[in-house]
């Protein structure tokens, strides 16, 4: 601990111990505890206490004082725990009877303060921190603390209850680590007393008829098997698994969620996964739980790397059941047996599906989500029933839209439940999108596109459902195989596009901005992938979509404007411009898109469209867009000028990105691709042609970069600093510093930069000669700036000394800092 902190500590302890000076800010106490943790991790806690007796005095004072706030009491308990984590310090505090008093009946535990959840939480956390050594275990066992922890598992505060459960796991782990590994069998006599007590409590809880107690025990065990990997966990499982299995005999199975978590935690444990009994228990659990409860377990089992095939089959069958029921119910006539056949007809699943709207929706959504998660995994069941799944999800979507006409009673009831259900529609569309990855017969693909089109067209589709429908459509479109020997789209896709574009057109005119936005995003993605495909280009240009997109640049909603900027940028990159206005519509001449985007960059009141415009400009410059290639210098100068005045730091940062792309292009292959990596060895020749420097001066890139260097937003300043360092390295051979530095322009520029640094950025720098630029680059301490900018903005304020001063100042002990508060 540095001397200044030591000097401030007594005053701080006095403040903390004084109930008349309450510490208003909880975060200060948390920071203080963090600091003490760092200090004790770096050195001896005992020494710390000996050198700073005020700390022990504080703890004693806390015990005596009756009217201290609960937060100081909680703080003190946690602080004591930090100190007592080292065994010698623990002994030291034990001698003074401080610890028994703090954590025993004589302390807050027996008093009125115990009613405050923060005190109970501090007590648990304090013990959790100090329980690091055998002495602590003995202390816990002797003082009856374990019993208190048991009772805190059911605490009304969830934080306290959860911390108590974790503390039990920690105690068990600590106790068992003391024993010789692997010697602990299931017999009680093998277990240390403290561990035995905890395990007996868990056993009692598992046998309890009260579900909350069973839940607590299962949660503790889940944490044990998830975090403790000693061989003793094997013995623990052997001992407790019969009790866990007995839970399955109850109807309904209590705490099913926690039970699933425990079984998955055990199955994932490297120590236990080879246990055959475990697989049997998992199989039993799958068959005992209701379909809704068993879903997460089935998914967890299928995610396991090593698992018996029979169990995997059972789990997969369970996940498929709801969809199998839907397929069966909606079938017009008994179809050929599909891969889901084994799963179909499960009466429990049918009962759940038909019991209520919420049960049906919940089960279907879970099944769809679980299968969607499983689909991309390498360990997913094989063969993957792509075709029946696709059929099922299409059926679900048809039931939801009301276009299915099932003949069976179950189908009719499912239809009545699902019609118009947005939740199921969203889940099904997500899963449909995921299924685009597999191979599917053309007939089914046609059905997929047909249902997607139905959703995209339907006035009943909500904006969220439409968004999902657009996403799924994109995934299916992009998976479309190219016609063999041809680089264009296959005829089916072509046909679909012809139907899709009028729908997209209508959606771009929707009164709901979310729909217009989703439509534009879809268009952007589609164009990004297919901008070069003749079929797509032809269909798009024949539609009014490009023109509508142009019009949406003036949408009242900023998100839509931003998406329209990106979309038009993308369309323009591929030369897909709006068709010229018809002669029947005078006054609607084709505007220059570049001009329109520059207008948005300069005048739009919202940040999103301006950011989007900058991204489009950067992309255009990078890709050599025709409008830009005409006169890149003019383009860059114009954009940088607009961006430099922008109030949004992301726009300014993007301006630097654009400047960098320009620089790369200017320097050609000779420049480094990564100017920010200034520390890399310079392999490329360092020179920059004077001509290039002149271009940079003409586009006023330096003015933009220097202004950004003193930007109030650190990311901009850092980016600019790196850019200028790169430029300085490149520009070095362009002229000697003396020569340039003597010129009057350089001197005035430096003076201007100093004023900018001081915050007076009103005046422009004006045109700088290349020589002057080099001189200024040399004169500015870019390395120093880079180091300063690399520090976090609160690096000065973050020091412990500052923390202590702040805390003292807040209560008025440090008079001289009082003014800081204002």
């Amino acid at each position, binding site marked *: 601990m540095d001397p200044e902190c030591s000097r401030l500590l007594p005053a701080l302890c006095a403040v903390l111990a004084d109930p008349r000076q309450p510490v208003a800010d909880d975060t200060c106490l948390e920071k203080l505890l963090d600091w003490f943790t760092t200090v004790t991790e770096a050195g001896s806690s005992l020494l710390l206490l000996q050198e700073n007796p005020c700390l022990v005095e504080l703890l004693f004072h806390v015990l005596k004082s009756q009217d201290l706030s609960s937060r100081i009491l909680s703080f003190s308990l946690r602080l004591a725990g930090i100190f007592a984590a080292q065994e010698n310090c623990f002994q030291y505090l034990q001698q003074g009877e401080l610890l028994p008093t703090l954590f025993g009946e004589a302390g807050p535990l027996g008093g009125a303060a115990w009613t405050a959840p923060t005190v109970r939480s501090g007590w648990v956390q304090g013990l959790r921190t100090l329980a690091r050594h055998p002495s602590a275990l003995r202390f816990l066992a002797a003082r009856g603390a374990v019993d208190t922890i048991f009772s805190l598992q059911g605490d009304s505060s969830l934080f306290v209850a959860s911390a108590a459960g974790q503390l039990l796991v920690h105690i068990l782990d600590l106790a068992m680590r003391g024993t010789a590994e692997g010697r602990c069998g299931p017999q009680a006599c093998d277990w240390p007393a403290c561990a035995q007590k905890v395990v007996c409590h868990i056993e009692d809880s598992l046998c309890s008829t009260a579900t909350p107690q069973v839940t607590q025990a299962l949660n503790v065990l889940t944490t044990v098997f998830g975090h403790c990997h000693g061989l003793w966990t094997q013995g623990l499982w052997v001992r407790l698994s019969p009790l866990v299995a007995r839970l399955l005999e109850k109807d309904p199975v209590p705490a099913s969620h926690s039970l699933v978590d425990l079984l998955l935690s055990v199955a994932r444990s490297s120590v236990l996964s080879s246990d055959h009994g475990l697989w049997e228990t998992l199989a039993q659990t799958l068959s005992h739980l209701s379909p809704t409860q068993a879903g997460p377990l089935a998914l967890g089992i299928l995610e396991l790397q090593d698992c018996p095939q029979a169990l995997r089959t059972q789990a997969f069958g369970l996940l498929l059941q709801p969809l199998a029921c839907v397929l069966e119910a909606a079938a017009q006539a008994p179809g050929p047996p599909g891969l889901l056949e084994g799963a179909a007809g499960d009466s429990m699943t049918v009962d759940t599906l038909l019991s209520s709207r919420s049960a049906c929706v919940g089960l279907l959504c879970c099944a769809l989500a679980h299968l969607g998660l499983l689909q991309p995994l390498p360990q997913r069941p094989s063969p993957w029933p792509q075709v029946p799944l696709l059929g099922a999800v299409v059926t679900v979507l048809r039931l939801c839209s009301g276009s299915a006409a099932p003949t069976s009673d179950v189908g*009719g009831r499912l*239809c009545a439940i699902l*019609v*118009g259900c947005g939740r199921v529609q969203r889940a099904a569309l997500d899963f449909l999108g995921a299924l685009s990855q597999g191979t599917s017969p053309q007939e089914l693909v046609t059905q997929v596109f047909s249902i997607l089109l139905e959703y995209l067209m339907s*006035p009943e589709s909500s904006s969220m459902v439409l968004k999902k429908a657009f996403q799924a459509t994109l995934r299916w479109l992009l998976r479309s195989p190219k016609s063999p020997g041809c680089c264009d789209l296959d005829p089916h896709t072509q046909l679909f596009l012809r139907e899709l574009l009028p729908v997209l057109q209508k959606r771009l005119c929707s009164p709901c901005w979310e729909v217009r936005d989703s439509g534009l995003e879809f268009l952007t993605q589609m164009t990004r992938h297919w901008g070069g495909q003749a079929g797509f280009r032809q269909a798009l240009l024949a539609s009014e979509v490009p023109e509508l997109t142009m019009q949406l640049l003036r949408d009242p909603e900023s998100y839509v404007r931003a998406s329209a900027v990106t979309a038009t940028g993308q369309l323009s990159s591929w030369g897909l411009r709006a068709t010229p206005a018809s002669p029947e519509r005078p006054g609607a001449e084709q505007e220059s898109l570049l001009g329109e985007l520059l207008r948005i960059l300069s005048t739009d009141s919202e940040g999103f469209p301006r950011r989007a415009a900058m991204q489009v400009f950067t992309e255009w410059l990078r890709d050599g867009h025709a409008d830009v290639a005409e006169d890149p210098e003019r383009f860059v100068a114009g954009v940088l000028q607009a961006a430099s005045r922008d109030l949004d730091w992301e726009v300014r940062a993007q301006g630097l990105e654009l400047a960098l792309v320009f620089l790369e292009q200017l320097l050609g292959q000779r420049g480094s691709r990564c100017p920010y990596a200034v520390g890399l060895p310079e392999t490329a020749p360092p020179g920059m042609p004077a001509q290039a420097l002149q271009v940079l001066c003409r586009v006023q890139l330096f003015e933009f970069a220097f202004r950004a260097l003193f930007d109030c937003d650190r990311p901009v300043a850092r980016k600019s600093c790196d850019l200028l360092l790169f430029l300085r390295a490149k520009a070095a051979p362009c002229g000697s510093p003396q020569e340039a530095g003597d010129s009057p322009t350089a001197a005035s520029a430096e003076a201007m930069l100093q004023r900018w640094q001081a915050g007076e950025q009103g005046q422009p720098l004006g045109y700088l000669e290349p020589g002057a630029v080099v001189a200024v680059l040399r004169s500015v301490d870019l390395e120093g700036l880079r180091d300063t900018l690399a520090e976090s903005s609160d690096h000065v304020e973050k020091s412990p000394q500052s923390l202590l001063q702040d805390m003292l100042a807040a209560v008025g002990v440090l008079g001289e800092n009082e003014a800081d508060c204002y």
Partner: protein
Amino acid sequence: MLDCGLDMTSTLNFLPLPLVQSPRLSNLPGWSLKDGNAFLDKELKECSGHVFVDSVPEFCLPETELIDLSTVDVILISNYHCMMALPYITEHTGFTGTVYATEPTVQIGRLLMEELVNFIERVPKAQSASLWKNKDIQRLLPSPLKDAVEVSTWRRCYTMQEVNSALSKIQLVGYSQKIELFGAVQVTPLSSGYALGSSNWIIQSHYEKVSYVSGSSLLTTHPQPMDQASLKNSDVLILTGLTQIPTANPDGMVGEFCSNLALTVRNGGNVLVPCYPSGVIYDLLECLYQYIDSAGLSSIPFYFISPVANSSLEFSQIFAEWLCHNKQTKVYLPEPPFPHAELIQTNKLKHYPSIHGDFSNDFRQPCVVFTGHPSLRFGDVVHFMELWGKSSLNTVIFTEPDFSYLEALAPYQPLAMKCIYCPIDTRLNFIQVSKLLKEVQPLHVVCPEQYTQPPPAQSHRMDLMIDCQPPAMSYRRAEVLALPFKRRYEKIEIMPELADSLVPMEIKPGVSLATVSAVLHTKDNKHVLQPPPRPAQPTGGKKRKRASDDIPDCKVLKPLLSGSIPVEQFVQTLEKHGFSDIKVEDTAKGHIVLLQEAETLIQIEEDSTHIICDNDEMLRVRLRDLVLKFLQKF
């Protein structure tokens, strides 16, 4: 009589009435029978395979055979669409009763009737077709004329004079106002949330409550929200006027409307919206007010053409108390509650009584025209259909659900203009009905048969029907239904002085009884117990006795008995009083005490005791007195 709607779908069988001479319509070929007989060719014209009556459109009136409408005392009107047949009833049936409706219902109803009369009267048609109505001829006609029901009862439109006379019979009411009907029942209108001034009605006596729910909406549109709470505890809920398009969500349809409108106008086309002059049009204009800027349509003119356009737009702004909360608060700012005021101010919305006059000077294309009639058989819409029907750039968007849009378009075929069907019906759908019934919990629901089964075209859609417990009682046209409750009780008032004289006696904790001797006075279905008249004082006997002086005889009443007879104690008492050979038998309703020696039987039941003995009055009186000992008298 609940509501008085007019079936206007009959007009779809007629040729449109063009405002401007239409060569196409006037040159349509006459229709002839299969055998070439052309005697109907003056009355019936053929257009694109459909046959239409070339005559002034006629309307199908409410059922008049089932009940003599002159005996109807009261008509309750739910909303302005449900009163369009009123002149037919009030002016031609001998009706002498009262019609109850809210003020906006009457005012806007008047506008709708005025528009209808105007549309038809301004295009006088010399020809009147009646030959085709002959039953023998009708069955030779092609569908749908062949299947049209009760064509003989179809009537021409009423006149403005009849409208005024009918409306004069309406008594205005406000929401939650209680109106006594002859002392028999009380009726109360409640907001139904569907249209300005639209109401549901509660018809209740002291012990029974019937709710009539018609044309209600739970959506947040311009009218005051629906009052659901007052519908609770109904014995019977009569449910009608649900959405006609249960599969179309109004929000989605408004979206479709806007998108299609924008697409058409952007392409340089015109949009025609056939509509009523009030109702959904207010919501559409409000929606467009928010939309036109975002869609870049600020420069596109919106025209609202109706003989009552001006009145409709102005009326909507003055019925503040009938509007939803948001619109009501605007009035206090003060601002016009509907944004169409601003559209008019900024010249984005212009309204005209007809296409003639100012409109022809201001008319600019592309534009959006709102005009009637939604049946496309009369009104200015006919002109625009003729004008724009040939270009595929134009679009007609149907928003009113009352008419099949395909049938409405039939006499305009072949048609190049685009047709979009966006029916916007904000009335309750089946999910909302299900929630409403769960909330309101009526004992019985009565509804039209159509609501109790899925629509024929979507027989698998079990969600498109009323699902309630107990199942709804359904009725069909001209069916007489007995409502499932009986009037068991009547409330009787007791005059204060009579109440003062009562001396209640507690016969068991919490239950007191008193005997009342009084005169029951009944007038106008009100029942009052008045103190009995004092015994007549002997007078000179010369005064002439008047009928009203007749007073009922007040006999001295025997005391009433209460209590129960404990059989064991009764037997003991009998024994004490010298009866022997007593036998007790249990019966289903009580006991029989048999005095074998005396050959007497005492039958004791919960609410009666009989002593049966053979002509031994002394014995009977003795036994009676023993029985009475166990009972209380008052």
